[in-house]
């Protein structure tokens, strides 16, 4: 069997997928949805951006990242701090500091965020830097599996508690709210809200392309190899710690960008988006859709967020039960997520055609491993 037609088929399908997604996001959605619903879609797409990173780190790298809220929050706060300073105008303190603080000037660690370029770069680079430092400690010490997950959770809880305690400089539980402008553009204007949506949609497609590139590169192969058998990779002369570190850092950067764009879309960032529960919710979306498949993780994240809105509007008093049921059914019957359905159907079809149970050769493999193995 030659490799060429296989690659061709794969990239052709990818291009078709991108074109379809682009068409849906840039043409269909803005025409079909009201301003309000489009704003909600923008919010869902932000969680999908986090899911892209989770797909890479967890689905491909086996790192159960239960603390993505931290990186989402770092990106979100970096962006919101700049926007709050810009809203207040030169020489003034952001509104909440005047109310709750005693300081008469900006705290030193706020000051760099006055610069828009610094703030924009920080939304991505700050989470990546934090992930790099943390990751190099964690992975070098060969912390893995459940210990890594617990550590991630503890980090999310600690960060949220710290933010709540610093009411005078971080807004405490309220977070940073009432954001009026976005680099000089009035967020009250529906036209500008629409532009924010387009920026988010474009960023999501970009991240998917980037993740796809990584997954199909030599590095992507190595990452899966580390997930499946770290010791063997080590014996082959690679350092698994570095391989995992890259996936962790990239996922953190993606979560940071998602948090940054969440701020103009929703107008608020608060510890409620950072702690343990939201961090788990990010993972659930990817798990329901299929953590090892990019398309599955993204659609899963959007689908779960959408279901949350739809169910809670329809059944304001009982929606949490339906949501729980949805997760249980999805994870009990499809541990590989909804994306594994595609693999199942394809296997069935090819086994019917050739009579060969392990029919596989067209299209990419969708690794459908049981939940426990990845952790």
């Amino acid at each position, binding site marked *: 069997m030659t490799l060429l037609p296989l690659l061709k088929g794969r990239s052709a399908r990818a291009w078709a997928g991108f074109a379809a997604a682009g068409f849906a996001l840039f043409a269909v959605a803005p025409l079909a949805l009201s*301003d*309000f619903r489009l*704003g*909600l879609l923008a*919010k869902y797409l932000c969680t999908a951006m986090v899911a892209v990173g989770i797909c890479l780190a967890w689905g491909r790298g086996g790192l159960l990242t239960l603390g993505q809220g931290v990186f989402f929050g770092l990106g979100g706060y970096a962006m919101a701090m700049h926007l709050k300073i810009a*809203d207040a105008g030169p020489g003034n303190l952001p509104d909440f500091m*005047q*109310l*709750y603080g005693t300081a008469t000037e900006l705290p030193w660690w706020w000051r760099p965020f006055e610069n828009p370029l610094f703030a*924009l770069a920080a*939304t*991505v*680079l700050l989470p990546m830097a934090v992930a790099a430092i943390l990751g190099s400690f964690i992975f070098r010490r060969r912390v893995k599996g459940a210990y890594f997950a617990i550590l991630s959770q503890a980090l999310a809880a600690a960060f949220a*508690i710290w933010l*709540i*305690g610093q*009411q005078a400089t971080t807004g*405490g*539980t*309220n*977070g940073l*709210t*009432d*954001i009026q*402008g*976005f*680099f*000089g*553009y*009035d967020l*009250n*204007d*529906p*036209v*500008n809200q629409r*532009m924010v949506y*387009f*920026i988010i949609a*474009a*960023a999501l497609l*970009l*991240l998917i392309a*980037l993740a796809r590139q990584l997954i199909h590169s030599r590095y992507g192969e190595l990452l899966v190899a580390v997930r499946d058998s770290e010791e063997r990779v080590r014996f082959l002369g690679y350092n698994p710690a570095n391989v995992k570190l890259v996936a962790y850092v990239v996922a953190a950067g*993606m979560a940071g*960008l998602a948090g*940054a*764009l969440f701020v103009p879309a*929703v*107008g*608020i960032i*608060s510890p*409620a*988006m950072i702690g343990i529960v939201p961090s788990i919710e990010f993972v659930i979306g990817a798990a329901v859709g299929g953590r090892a498949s990019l398309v599955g993780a993204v659609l899963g994240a959007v689908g779960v967020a959408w279901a949350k*809105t739809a169910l*809670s*509007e329809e059944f*304001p*008093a009982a*929606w*949490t039960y339906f949501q729980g049921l949805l997760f249980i059914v999805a994870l009990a019957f499809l541990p590989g997520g909804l994306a594994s359905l595609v693999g199942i159907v394809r296997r069935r079809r090819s086994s019917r055609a050739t009579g060969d149970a392990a029919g596989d050769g067209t299209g990419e493999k969708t690794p459908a491993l049981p939940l426990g193995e990845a952790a």
Partner: protein
Amino acid sequence: MAGAAALTAVVVLSACGAKTDAEGGSSDAAAKADTSGDTVKVGLLNSLSGTMAISEVTVRDSLKLAIDEINASGGVLGKKVKPISEDGASDWPTFAEKANKLIKEDRVTATFGCWTSASRKAVKPVFEKNKSLLFYPVQYEGLEESPYIFYTGATTNQQIVPALDYLKSQGKKSIYLVGSDYVFPRTANKIIKAYAKANGMKVLGEDYAPLGSTEFSTIANKVKAAKADAVFNTLNGDSNVAFFKEYKSAGLTAKSMPVVSVSIAEEEVKSIGSQYLAGQLTAWNYYQTTAGEANTKFVKAYKAKYGQDKPTSDPMEAAYTSVYLWKAMVEKAKSFDPEKVKAASDGITFDAPEGEVTVDGASQHIYKTARIGKIGTDGLIEQVWDSGKAIKPDPYLKGYDWASGLS
């Protein structure tokens, strides 16, 4: 790289949309409420799930009671009121999302609800952007006057300051502050410390526990060691259960060191257990036992609708009152238009269960009587002191010299 993409997109933005410094902008972005039919919709925005559900569901029930009563007596301006309930899920961005939904999709004429300050802060810009009204029924930390929010709960000079006056009049010279770690307790304690400094009271300690925390042995022991005359408690929710249990096992009693709580109402007394609370003090503007015909009627109607074992509390009463105040404003304005309703608000009165309340049009807060109560063994709260008259709301404490450095 991704940041660069965002930057490029920002540049693309320059092609359209209003700038923040543009005069007027497109302020007509405000969604217009739909009042054309023979019903008008109002939004009820409360947490029906999550940690705040236990408190906020009672507020939602109380709002529904008021709406039912108003509909039974002919509605507002001849239109029936249709409540649309949404779940804020104890999550601040969700509150903002649902507020948007109520205004833009359901086109409600007014919204009632929110409990925590964080949820109010999250929805405040939504109501201001869309020029739609929110009626907020819970006592809060003050320092706020949104043109599109009516505050029917107490601000600090109607609850915390009178409670401190009461402690002072009882000869208490030192206090210990215990609170949950969020905006209301931190701001309240800032005010308390300023008051104490000006009135010769000593603050012997200040401790915060994360919301939902149940570990209080350290704090109870610190309180005991400090030997304060009284404790000022701004803990919220479940934490109170653990705190009062530890308080009792540390050997502290209402006699030896009374606790004044500002977030424990009848509903909470029931869940904490009156055996831990009997004799302790609370500061509110309304108790189920408050005298008056309006309250007798309210308590009776509430129990008939939701069950005899259900108590009524201050936030529930403020929520109930807020619906009637809105009705009175709309009828005076002869319009559902938020601007006209606001203009008509000043001086509106209502014979509320807590006694007559009056709307102060300038601050959009209401005049309220402060009441100190003592928790009884039966789980009800008996009034031991009141301010005699309804206190004028002063959210920024401008009328108090000692508070000048606070905002």
